[in-house]
């Protein structure tokens, strides 16, 4: 496997960021499932329960459900606990709004399945302007 893998997609909200990937083929609600002040996922039984969103590239299927998403994301950002970028397979309109308002890049409509390639802990560079994510694997 090569050291760096690129996945092309569509920039939903522009910008560039890099960070450690936080990955689950799952949905997540910022409302009720994320604590803005600790930046942690508090959803009981969620595959990412207990993980911190701070400075992570959040690779999930989509956010879900809640109109509280932009507000929680705003508080998290003010506290320095927000993800640096969103990579979502499906675009939830509220996550898009949260990213627009809080100026967080978001990538979607990926050309291949990210869950087959990227794992939690990998370094990921997201360039939503160019529509690509570059993954540096932590292990071969």
């Amino acid at each position, binding site marked *: 496997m090569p050291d760096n893998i690129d996945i092309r997609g569509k920039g939903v909200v522009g910008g560039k960021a890099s960070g450690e990937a936080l990955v689950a083929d799952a949905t997540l609600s910022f409302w009720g*499932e994320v604590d803005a002040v600790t930046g942690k996922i508090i959803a009981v039984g969620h595959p990412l329960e207990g993980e911190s969103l701070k400075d992570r590239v959040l690779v999930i299927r989509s956010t*879900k459900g809640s*109109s509280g998403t932009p507000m929680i994301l705003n508080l998290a950002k*003010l506290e320095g606990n927000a993800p640096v970028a969103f990579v979502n397979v499906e675009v939830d*309109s509220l996550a898009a709004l949260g990213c627009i308002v809080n100026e967080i890049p978001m990538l979607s409509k990926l050309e291949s399945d990210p869950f087959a390639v990227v794992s939690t802990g990998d370094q990921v560079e997201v360039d939503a302007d160019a529509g690509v994510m570059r993954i540096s694997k932590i292990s071969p």
Partner: protein
Amino acid sequence: MNLTTEQQSILDGSKGEYLAKCMRWLVQWGDVMGAEGLIKCDNTHALLPVPNLMARNASDDTMRSYMADLKQACEHRTAEGCYCTLHAAFVTFEDVDVPENDPEQVAMQKELADLAANAGFIPTFTCAPYLVGNVPVRGEVCAWTESSAVVYANTILGARTTRHGTESAIAASLLGLVPEYGVLLDENRKGSLRVEVTANLTHPTDWGALGYFAGKEAGLGIPVFNGCRRPSQDEAKQLCAALATSGGVTMAHIVGVTPEARTLEDAFQDEVPEETILFDNETLRAQYESLRQITGDEIDACILGCPHASIRELAEIAHLLKGKKVADGVRLWVDTARGTKGNADAMGYTKIIEDAGGTILTETCPTNMRIPAKRIITHGFKQAHYSRGMIECESIIAKTDACVRSAVAGKWLGD
């Protein structure tokens, strides 16, 4: 997106910096969601809350910056003719004896409520605006926050709203505009998942179970319920809240009930799928079991009114509690809008509930306030689902009468 000359000039700052920012949010959001333009919006349900314990241990800078944004919104007027109500808050204005109702935050919320009223927002502070006068008509373009209310507006009333967040609902309220995408357009109101309902639904919580199941199955899609009877207002409220809890549903169709779905063909815009999923009595029971993962029987909170209770639910709860006492160590909360409580006061329901040791909570709910509990019982699937993470409790979903019986006994007595 194509903007009119006036919209472009607001974006360029003709009405000041804040409205330019609001316009930018709507335009950028519309571009992302594939809207071709902005259309007139006559009805909003917006969020102007202090964060209370959600921002426990947040820095002073965070709070200052957060409050400054909301105050700035209230320095403007809501758009002419636009009906603007406010979503539930995270504190109560009631005189309750709980440390979670931080007096500093209550004062800040009261200040915001006054500023909001001056700006033209009606301070309803509820998650169920359709119970306190904000009842849009079929086809009315709205901008609502609160996913459960969004599903209700689209599914039960036939109004049209996408799911809004704080900033987009404020922008829509001040500008009277929304980007035209999603369920605002006929073609995006087409059903995506056919659910045949054979289960015997006898109570609002059963309808919550149906929504909880279908939300998981539908994801961001549009479930179509076929074969069920017409729900009551309270049953519809539970269905819609649960749909928005387990999934990202914006609307559903109930064949024969949703205004634009007189038939199955209507709901699917003449492309009825062969494939169906079944909601039978066994599936119904499984939904209850999924939110009863408990390690003991003792309960310390009973939370009713999620979403905010209707006057008929308050009547039922008062009837069940009349002459009884909530067990020591159990807090029984009934959450509702201030307007509904006014009617409950007049009907004598408030006194009966308080005499039994219960508390009516307005503007908010105990989970929004983060009032801690070890094990709660509730009739709302939304409450049972979220409270587990938000207040780190165990939860038990049950019908209203079973909730009240358990609150009186101090422990889960079963259905």
